């Protein structure tokens, strides 16, 4: 078990040069540990590659990672520490939108650029011009599953939202807006909180409304239990979800009960492009497992930061911010990344389905 302590990224010094300190905050332990562990592995792999190739501007990158233990309140504390004590030039994190929203104002205030690998709630980059993300946002992600549902003829959908997570609330809102605007019907809306273990009352209510599908834009820990209990209660319709489903315990806990469900995501490890295959091979060689979205996005976020430092020629906050903001057509493993005026990435999403103990690619959806 990784203890919630300071983990210093060890870097290969190209010269005995002054390292560039980059901070990372992630949920390495706790309920959403899968997110943090994956993102961290991807980021670490990127930093290793960068340093092995000589670093940036002749200096190695020193990755300083802190664990927020999946707990609210922790991101603020550790980001403050990274900025004031470790004097990092930029911050990478977090996956969960609620945690990014906690840390963003602190980075903005201190004029330290922050790049979130996977937070999709639009409010994150609205905090200020020093906050960036390398993934798509929920107004787009909501439409992806809404369109998919209608294409499959599922016109009556029930929605089960996690009220404790900004991500879940936002994604549900965008899904519902798009679904209703295109003639669909939301037959029931139910809620739960992160950390809940029993969903039978909500699922019983949803079952009574006879939906064609159920949209569950939550995180993997609860989704796995929801799927299991839904099957037990005889709710046989497919479940639909978002990128929050991507977690290692999802299938371990849910078993076969998620077979035939669909979710939108950033990355498919089956992608045949050479860039992705190269990344997957290197990741497997280093960690012995196939990378998921969060790992791929962590990798891209670190690569984009490095490129921006190179472009700016300095780690000073103003020019660095400018360089990150002008990232265009970066060839990332999650697609071509261009940051728009709102500092969000306009990218395609992939829809994956679950079966045979793993995820399978269904289709790509362009914005």
């Amino acid at each position, binding site marked *: 078990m990784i203890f919630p302590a300071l983990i210093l990224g060890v870097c290969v010094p190209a010269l005995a040069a002054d390292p560039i300190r980059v901070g990372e905050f992630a949920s390495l332990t706790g*309920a959403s540990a899968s997110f943090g562990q994956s993102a961290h592995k991807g980021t670490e792999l990127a930093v290793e590659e960068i340093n092995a190739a000589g670093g940036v501007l002749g200096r190695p990158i020193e990755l300083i990672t802190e664990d927020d233990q999946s707990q609210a309140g922790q991101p603020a504390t550790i980001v403050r520490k990274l900025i004031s004590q470790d004097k990092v030039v930029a911050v990478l994190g977090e996956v969960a939108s609620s945690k990014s929203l906690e840390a963003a104002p602190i980075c903005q205030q201190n004029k330290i650029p922050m790049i979130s690998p996977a937070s999709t709630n639009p409010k994150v980059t609205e905090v200020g011009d020093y906050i960036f993300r390398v993934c798509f946002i929920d107004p787009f992600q909501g439409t992806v599953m809404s369109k998919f549902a209608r294409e499959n003829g599922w016109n009556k959908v029930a929605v089960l939202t996690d009220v404790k997570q900004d991500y879940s609330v936002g994604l549900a809102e965008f899904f519902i807006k798009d679904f209703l605007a295109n003639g669909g019907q939301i037959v029931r809306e139910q809620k739960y909180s992160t950390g809940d273990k029993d969903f039978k009352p909500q699922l019983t209510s949803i079952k009574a409304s006879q939906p064609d599908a159920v949209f569950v834009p939550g995180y993997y820990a609860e989704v796995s239990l929801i799927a299991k209990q839904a099957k*037990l209660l*005889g709710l046989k319709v497919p479940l639909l979800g978002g990128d929050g489903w991507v977690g290692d315990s999802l299938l371990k*806990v849910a078993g076969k009960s998620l077979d035939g469900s669909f979710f939108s995501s950033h990355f498919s490890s089956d992608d045949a492009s050479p860039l992705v295959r190269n990344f997957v091979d290197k990741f497997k060689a280093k960690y012995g497992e196939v990378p998921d979205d969060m790992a791929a996005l962590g990798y891209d976020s670190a690569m984009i930061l490095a490129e921006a430092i190179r472009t700016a020629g300095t780690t000073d906050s103003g020019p660095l911010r400018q360089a990150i903001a002008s990232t265009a057509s970066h060839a990332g493993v999650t697609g071509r990344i261009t940051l728009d005026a709102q500092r969000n990435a306009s990218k395609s999403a992939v829809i994956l389905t679950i079966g045979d103990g793993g995820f399978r690619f269904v289709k790509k959806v362009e914005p």
Partner: protein
Amino acid sequence: MIEFLQQLINGLSQGAIYALIALGYTMVFGVLRFINFAHGDIYMLGAFAGFYTAPKLLSLTGGGPSYEGAALVLVAAMALCAAAGVIIERLCYRPLRAQPRLTVLIAAIGVSLFLENGGQFFFGADPQAFPEIIADSAIELPASWGDFALLTLTVGQVIVIGSTIVLLAALRTVVMHTRTGMAMRALSLNPLAASLMGVNTDAVISFTFAIGSAMAGAAGILTSIQQPSIDPLMGINAGLKAFVAAVLGGIGNIPGAALGGVIIGVLEALVVGYINPTYRDPLVFAVLILVLLFKPSGLLGKAEREKV
């Protein structure tokens, strides 16, 4: 109507869990006049005991989920929790018996925090997947029941409710029809008189803790059958709700604990299903406040008059 009955069944199976945990609170209070705040964490220990022993025990009964295997896991968890309860009592509460009530109460809070954080240290803070000890599935009700055939009853729910009834009956037998049970009842009436009558106070108290903890351990296993995601902090919420259940039924009253558990479980299911899931916890704790304001002795408790 069907939806309502379904929610009742959901509430009943959750309420059974609360009832089992509440028994521990109520028995310890009855005998020692002290709320064991660490009791909810014994429930968590039961779940983890099952998590670690299940693979070996299931392999003894043929490898996969089975009723015999599940029974073995249940007994193992109950035994381990009983031992844990006795050890905690011996080390942390017995030395403080002569101290003011507040001291041992704070010690209990300390034990609770120790178990939770120690659990995070030893078991890891991430939720773990509890192994499948019973192949849970929905039971097909006969079509001749008409509309009622639409109800979904799962094997897990039947086992939880059935096991709870069996354990409650066993407890009642022990308390009402054995000498040790009589000693427990005597101790709860008047400790000094009981010891003057030859009751081994220390042994009976240890026995009370053992039984209460065993019930909580059983609750931990039964819960994990339906909600197979366990983590070291799972005892906090369940322990609090069970405590409310014990107070609702009448703290110190064993049938009261069972009744309180069922009421809280059903109330939760109805609030979540019909009103708003976010009101679930506030409502349960509102019940606690109302009970203490209007009938502090609980539904089945008798107001004790202190004769001066």
